């Protein structure tokens, strides 16, 4: 099927959903390749897989303007790719190379692309919420109608700073969209077992935020919800999306996933967003070959990114001292 320009947001237009399906596959291919490169020793440190959660970043970002911004967290690859960051620059970053998105000095948890409004992944849970509030404030001061999105996981709802930020956005009526990606686990602990009250949605509503809980693995539902809420956010009403999902990998590259019942993980696979969207697209008349082609194209694009990362130059030693601050010890 020939692709047209992306139709209006939030519609169930098949061309639009097909395009988002491509983005989800690009994210997944990136994550699979990143995991492989980590196992092979080319990528170091922490790599937090977004596999199984791709629909949320994909559909939310598809409803943003290029000049809107997002603040992400440790599980941030999907948000960057969905906002348009070049996966090759990201892969070079994971490989610690000079031409990575952060010049090889940040790694997986500090990928940022300010040219596209990606204010960075972040290694401190919940911080995306405060940063997004600040970005939104800056837009208002400058008289701009841009918005800021804060992505975070369900673990973040037990950090005081997240709750402060919900209050903050509401009292100042800042154009912030909070997106809580509830994958049910805070590292290895089931979030529900360490959370008093009724969870993320109830907490957001306690601050008077317009908040909705949705199936975050349903691409169409996320797309519809983002399309409905983002104009409200842009008009100065902070909103909150509680997107229920499930991560199919462990929390982080180096930690064996021993704390979840394998049967639980297996049972969730049927509900993961790529399979579900594929079923929907087949119902709309796409062929399996069409869908396989998307996956193959994504894998090939990421494979090329990995090849480029292998060949990319390393930072030179002067990079160590660059960009700390303008003022240093006077000579």
């Amino acid at each position: 099927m020939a692709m047209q320009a992306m139709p209006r947001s939030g519609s169930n237009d098949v061309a639009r959903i097909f395009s988002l399906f491509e983005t989800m596959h690009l994210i997944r291919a990136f994550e699979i390749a990143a995991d492989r490169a980590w196992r092979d020793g080319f990528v170091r440190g922490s790599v937090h897989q977004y596999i199984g959660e791709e629909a949320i970043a994909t559909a939310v970002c598809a409803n943003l303007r290029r000049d809107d911004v997002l603040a992400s967290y440790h599980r941030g690859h999907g948000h960057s790719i969905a906002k348009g960051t070049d996966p090759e620059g990201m892969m070079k970053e994971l490989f610690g190379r000079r031409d990575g998105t952060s010049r090889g000095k940040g790694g997986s948890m500090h990928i940022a692309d300010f040219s596209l409004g990606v204010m960075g992944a972040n290694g401190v849970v919940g911080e995306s919420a405060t940063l997004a509030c600040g970005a939104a404030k800056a837009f208002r001061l400058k008289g701009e109608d841009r918005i800021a999105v804060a992505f975070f996981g369900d673990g973040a709802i037990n950090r005081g700073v997240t709750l402060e930020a919900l209050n903050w956005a509401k009292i100042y009526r800042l154009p912030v969209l909070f997106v809580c990606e509830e994958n049910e686990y805070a590292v290895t602990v089931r979030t529900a077992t360490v959370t008093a009250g009724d969870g993320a949605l109830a907490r957001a509503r306690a601050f008077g935020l317009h908040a909705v809980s949705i199936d975050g693995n349903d691409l169409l539902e996320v797309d519809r919800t983002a399309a409905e809420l983002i104009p409200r956010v842009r008009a100065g009403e902070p909103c909150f999306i509680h997107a229920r999902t499930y991560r199919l990998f462990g929390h982080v590259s180096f930690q064996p996933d021993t704390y979840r019942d394998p049967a639980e993980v297996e049972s969730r696979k049927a509900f993961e967003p790529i399979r579900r969207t594929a079923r929907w697209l087949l119902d709309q008349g796409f062929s399996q070959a069409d869908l396989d082609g998307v996956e193959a194209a994504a894998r090939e694009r990421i494979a090329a990114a990995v090849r480029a990362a292998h060949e990319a130059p390393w930072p030179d030693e002067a990079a160590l001292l660059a960009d700390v601050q303008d003022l240093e010890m006077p000579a």
Partner: protein
Amino acid sequence: MTYSEAARLALAEEMRRDPLVWALGQDLGPEGGVAGQYKGLLAEFGPERIVDTPISEATMLGSAVGAAAMGTRPVCELRYADFGICAADQLVNQAAKMRYMFGGQMRVPLVVRQSIGWKVGGAAQHAQSTEAWWAHTPGLVVVCPATPRDNRGLLKAAIRCDDPVVYMENKNLWAETGDVPDDEEVVPLGKASIAREGEDVTIVTWSRIVAVALEAAGALAGRGIEVEVIDLRTIWPWDRAAVERSLEKTGRLLVAHESVQAAGFGAEIAADMAERMHGKLRAPIRRIGGRRTPIPYSERLDEPSRVTPAQIVGIVEKMA
């Protein structure tokens, strides 16, 4: 003009000059800041630029970082350095690191004001001096003005700086008066000033202890010892060249500060000068600073807990 009025003047001038300069913190509007340093600014600039906030230090600073990352110049008022610790994550992990960890693609032009210094009856949680904490953090500039003139000129420089500046006024200096020039002087960051010239002993200090050292220097002059007092003004980056020049002359160094002596910033200066100036030194380098105790409440414990002119005189007499 008082130290507090000088700070108010600096912020007002910078806010008139640049519409992207704004301030946030507790009690800026109704109270005009803990020492009146924001008095009248709400009326002039309105609630979008003089923002009264909830008591949410982490989000005050975190949102200031986000707003700085998007090109505005926030001045984040945290009242006391003790409360700055409530926002340590946003200062250390976010503001200080972002430029570097994102490969230089952005800047964080942010001023974080948190006052240091002893306070009458302040006790353990309202009177700490924490400049060494932030000087230890790569990415931060740390400024400790000692005079009204410098409080005006350094705050203006801090607001214009493209990197995060921890700006630490001193609670005991708010009411101090001094001359402030008519022109809009901007005092460069990273440059010390010579508060008193002398040939025999160099005292490197900052903030309130500048006045303490000057008082000691006056007493010592009567005993035939001429002390040079260097007001460092900026703790990081500190003006090593100014200290070296002075030591070329005196060969004797005392570093004095109000904050805890152990692992204080004086230790860095002492160690650095010991390494670089060993052959020029005529006496062991000395330090004096706060005791390694929480700040006590009782007035009977003030004297033994503080750095005094008499203590400085005693140390310098043994060095000269």
